[in-house]
């Protein structure tokens, strides 16, 4: 039986209330136990935010324990092992499980609303990211609850974190849990980039995008490039701990400095990955309260890009004391100072916006003022630390602890709390308490500065970080007591803030539709926000559309906009041209699905089995996960039976009928992250070769060049076959397409086989870092060839299925992208493995 609103005419004349009810029925998430199937970006974003808040509270309690221990000299409140676990977990929770997921949650919740879309590009991937994040966090918290928390510090330096000095599974819990959480971050990064570039309101050109979208776009790109080195480091360290493959152990050709490089290649960009979205929130809020458009839009975009790129050239400033040549240190020192310039540009733009506007002083502005003060202070000590001689003096002291807390609290916590107050009416429909919010601000601001300003002094007096006790008489006692008192005052402020938010989310004054008078699109909808965001999508011709058209929300609710009519049972949003924002096609999004939850649980089985060294179980978990991913891919777009007639070809088509679909973007971006991991692996290989002691190894790989040549030919054959299949598709040459897929499969199989034979000819991987890194390089290609075979098999089978006929081109395109990547990386690996022994005399 058809719904009363199932026809186009009925939909066109529907009242706003009827339209709202129909769209809510279409977009809302299931309730009860079925809520695990939720995929809507608002739900997933809120889950990220709430889960990150819980991790933040746990991390905060751990911080209080640290300060209680350090308040007096010689305290016996905690023993050294417990203290080590606590400071390790404090850093780990705050950096990995609070800061980034919290900002991802905000981005997931806000971006489609700011961009004029109804959802993100990959709703199921977003849900999968959430479950991975939750599982990774629970592994870490579970370890802590059982007294098995990692205790080597949040950056897990080797050899302390190696099997010799950290026996047991504590370090493994960190490696597994963090890797799991980082998979989540990369999934979120892929989803955010695709969504920002392709799913926007009609007319929202690149230069009309909200600045928050620019910040998140750049941040998500940084996640794709910044996180893989740490994932690689974690894999290598786990391989060393579990299987004895030496990467960081000096006696067998490894080098602990490799871990430091891999960690800080991630770790320093991480600071900016945290700061940039928070700065994006600042750039969104300041124009609202200044009552003036943001000054220097282009300069801010340029600064964001420069900050992101430069942040990848700073990592060695964490390693100034490890014996790197002075000239190399100067490269990183200059880059570290350079990065202050784009940060300064943003500050001046914020100040200029306030100067040119007519600022109104509302509660979020208080926290923004706190941000400006605290972050500038942290930035200045950052420039001090960029100077090599000063860095040597205060390395590993409390000065560094004070600096990083000024940067991270200033750069994240204050903007975040401002953002919570700013968007609270949007999420809850209610206003916060100005009085409680003001009290909590002064407690947090005052407590923070009392806690951390004196820490610069204890650092300059020589107090090292990470000591669980210190003797009296060094002049540190009073300062530490003051710090501890300040930290507890700050904790009271945070408690008051949370109380304010949760109480007033339920009983606060009802907010109007746009209570702060903002210009961005997320306020052009009822509050709390409906699950479908916009009843009709707005046409955008300004950076602050609500300032130009204050009644836009009412127009959209009444269906005056794009995609005002809907297909029952189909979730749709518009895709636009990346640069000029002109609509290109309609993206059909999936509804609630248990698949992300099931796939995440299978992934969790894999990781838990690796953690407990149940490798047969790990293989089963991986097989189940792979099967679920194949089913997931198989079902994607399977219900789209749309046929396009010539009369319809000048209207917008569904994404299944055009090139450049979300799937192509997704695979391309995932391979970007994958390529970064590969590049980091190559870096590690060359680094050990050049720098590590105890080289050369006793033996190099001994294999006939014919196998290398065969592998190279096979790689090119697989690439060629995938390309041939794709080229045949639009011409309807089914036999040629199938031949192409067959050639690709044969090439892929041959590639995997040749690589396996070469691997068998390598010296035993446990003997030396050379053999270990060579084995990992070859294993990387074998794994990717195997995944490519699955890719090709799925595209071949879907090509034969009558259900999937319209999708064949996309499937083949995805397979080609994959095989092109595999072939290029295979050729690089073959050149390196075959060629490096010949340049050994250069050492």
């Amino acid at each position, binding site marked *: 039986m058809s719904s009363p609103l199932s026809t*186009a005419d009925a*939909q*066109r004349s529907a009242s706003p209330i009827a339209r709202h009810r129909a769209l809510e029925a279409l977009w809302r998430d299931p309730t009860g136990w079925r809520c695990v199937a939720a995929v809507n970006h608002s739900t997933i974003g809120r889950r990220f935010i709430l889960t990150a808040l819980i991790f933040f509270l746990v991390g905060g309690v751990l911080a209080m324990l640290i300060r209680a221990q350090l308040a007096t000299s010689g305290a016996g409140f905690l023993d050294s092992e417990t203290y080590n676990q606590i400071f390790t977990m404090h850093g780990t929770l705050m950096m990995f499980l609070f800061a980034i997921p919290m900002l991802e949650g905000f981005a997931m919740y806000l971006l489609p609303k700011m961009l004029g879309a109804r959802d993100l590009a990959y709703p199921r991937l977003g849900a999968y990211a959430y479950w991975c994040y939750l599982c990774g966090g629970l592994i870490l918290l579970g370890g802590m609850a059982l007294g098995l928390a990692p205790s080597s510090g949040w950056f897990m330096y080797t050899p302390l974190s190696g099997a010799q000095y950290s026996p047991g599974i504590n370090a493994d819990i960190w490696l597994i849990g963090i890797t799991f959480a980082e998979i989540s971050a990369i999934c979120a990064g892929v989803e955010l980039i695709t969504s920002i570039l392709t799913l926007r309101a*009609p007319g929202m*050109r*690149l*230069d009309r995008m909200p600045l928050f979208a620019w910040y998140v776009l750049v941040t998500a790109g940084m996640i794709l490039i910044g996180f893989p080195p740490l994932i690689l480091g974690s894999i290598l360290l786990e391989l060393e701990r579990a299987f004895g493959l030496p990467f960081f152990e000096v006696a067998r050709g490894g080098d602990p400095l490799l871990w430091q490089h891999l960690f800080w290649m991630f770790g320093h960009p991480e600071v900016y990955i945290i700061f940039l979205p928070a700065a994006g929130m600042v750039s969104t809020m300041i124009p609202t309260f200044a009552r003036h458009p943001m000054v220097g839009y*282009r*300069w801010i975009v*340029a600064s964001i*890009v*420069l900050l992101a*790129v*430069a942040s990848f*050239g700073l990592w*060695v400033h964490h390693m100034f004391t490890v014996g790197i*040549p*002075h*000239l*190399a240190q*100067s*490269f990183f020192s*200059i*880059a570290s100072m*350079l990065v202050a310039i784009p940060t300064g540009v943003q500050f001046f733009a914020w100040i200029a916006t306030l100067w040119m506007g007519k600022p109104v002083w509302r509660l979020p502005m208080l926290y923004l003022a706190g941000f400006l003060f605290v972050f500038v202070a942290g930035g200045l000590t950052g420039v001090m630390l960029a100077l090599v001689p000063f860095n040597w003096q205060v390395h590993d002291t409390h000065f560094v602890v004070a600096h990083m807390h000024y940067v991270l609290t200033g750069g994240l916590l204050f903007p975040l709390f401002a953002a919570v107050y700013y968007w609270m009416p949007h999420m809850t429909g209610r206003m916060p308490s100005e009085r409680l919010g003001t009290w909590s601000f002064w407690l947090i601001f005052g407590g923070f500065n009392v806690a951390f300003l004196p820490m610069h002094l204890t650092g300059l007096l020589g107090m090292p970080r990470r000591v669980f006790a210190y003797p009296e008489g060094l002049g540190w006692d009073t300062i530490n007591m003051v710090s501890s008192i300040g930290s507890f005052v700050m904790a009271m402020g945070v408690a008051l803030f949370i109380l304010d938010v949760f109480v007033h989310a339920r009983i606060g004054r009802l907010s109007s539709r746009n209570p702060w008078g903002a210009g961005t699109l997320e306020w052009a909808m009822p509050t709390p926000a409906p699950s479908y965001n916009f009843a*009709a999508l707005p*046409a955008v011709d300004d950076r602050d559309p609500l300032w130009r058209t204050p009644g836009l929300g009412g127009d959209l609710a009444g*269906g005056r906009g*794009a*995609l*005002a*009519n*809907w*297909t029952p049972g*189909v979730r*749709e949003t518009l895709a636009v*041209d*990346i*640069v*000029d924002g*002109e*609509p*290109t*096609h*309609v993206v059909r999004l999936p509804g609630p699905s248990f698949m992300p939850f099931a796939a995440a649980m299978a992934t969790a089985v894999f990781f838990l089995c690796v953690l407990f060294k149940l490798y047969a179980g790990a293989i089963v978990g991986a097989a189940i996960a792979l099967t679920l991913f194949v089913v997931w891919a198989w079902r994607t777009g399977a219900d789209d039976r749309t046929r*396009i007639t010539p009369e*319809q*070809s*000048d*209207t*917008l*088509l*569904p994404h299944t009928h*055009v*090139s*450049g679909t979300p799937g192509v973007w997704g695979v391309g971006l995932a391979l970007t992250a994958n390529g970064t991991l590969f590049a980091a692996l190559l870096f590690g290989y*060359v680094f050990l070769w*050049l720098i590590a002691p105890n080289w050369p190894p006793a033996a190099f790989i001994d294999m006939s060049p014919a196998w290398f040549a065969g592998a190279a030919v096979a790689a090119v054959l697989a690439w060629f076959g995938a390309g041939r299949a794709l080229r045949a598709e639009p011409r309807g040459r089914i036999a040629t397409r199938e031949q192409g897929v067959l050639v690709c499969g044969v090439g892929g199989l041959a590639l995997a086989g040749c690589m396996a034979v070469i691997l068998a000819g390598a010296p035993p991987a446990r003997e030396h870092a050379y053999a270990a890194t060579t084995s990992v390089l070859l294993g990387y290609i074998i794994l990717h060839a195997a995944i490519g075979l699955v890719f090709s098999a799925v595209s071949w089978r879907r090509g034969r299925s009558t259900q999937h006929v319209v999708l064949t081109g996309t499937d083949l395109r995805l397979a080609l992208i994959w095989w092109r990547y595999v072939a290029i990386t295979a050729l690089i690996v073959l050149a390196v493995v075959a060629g490096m022994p010949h340049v050994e005399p*250069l*050492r």
Partner: protein
Amino acid sequence: MTDRHNTPSSRPSDRRRFRFGGGLRPVAGLALWVSAFAFLYGGLSVGCRAALSPAPWLSTDGVTLWLTGLWLVHVIGAAALLYGSWRDRDAPPRNEGGAAGFLERLTLTLDGIAIAAIVAIGVPILLLPPCS
């Protein structure tokens, strides 16, 4: 097909498609800075490990010479990029405004920043001994 009330009509084949390489042009200068950084840092390690000898007719260190060459290649590359974006500053689509013009101006800005950054990180090569 969905009935698209008020949706602007367009066909994908009619519009300029986003090209991956073209889309990355604004960050080409900064990518060159990354390249300079990687080559200088990596080149320093390789040069010091290989103990490069100076040319007999030059009084400078061999590693310094090698690094200076790498640096200058990048400076020249960045200058070429900057010249290209400067030369196109008044050509379409920049003079038409809109998103394309915005990207052109962004490219010019980032190219200018990139050459300054490449020059800045290379100056110590001329001032410091390489391998100590």
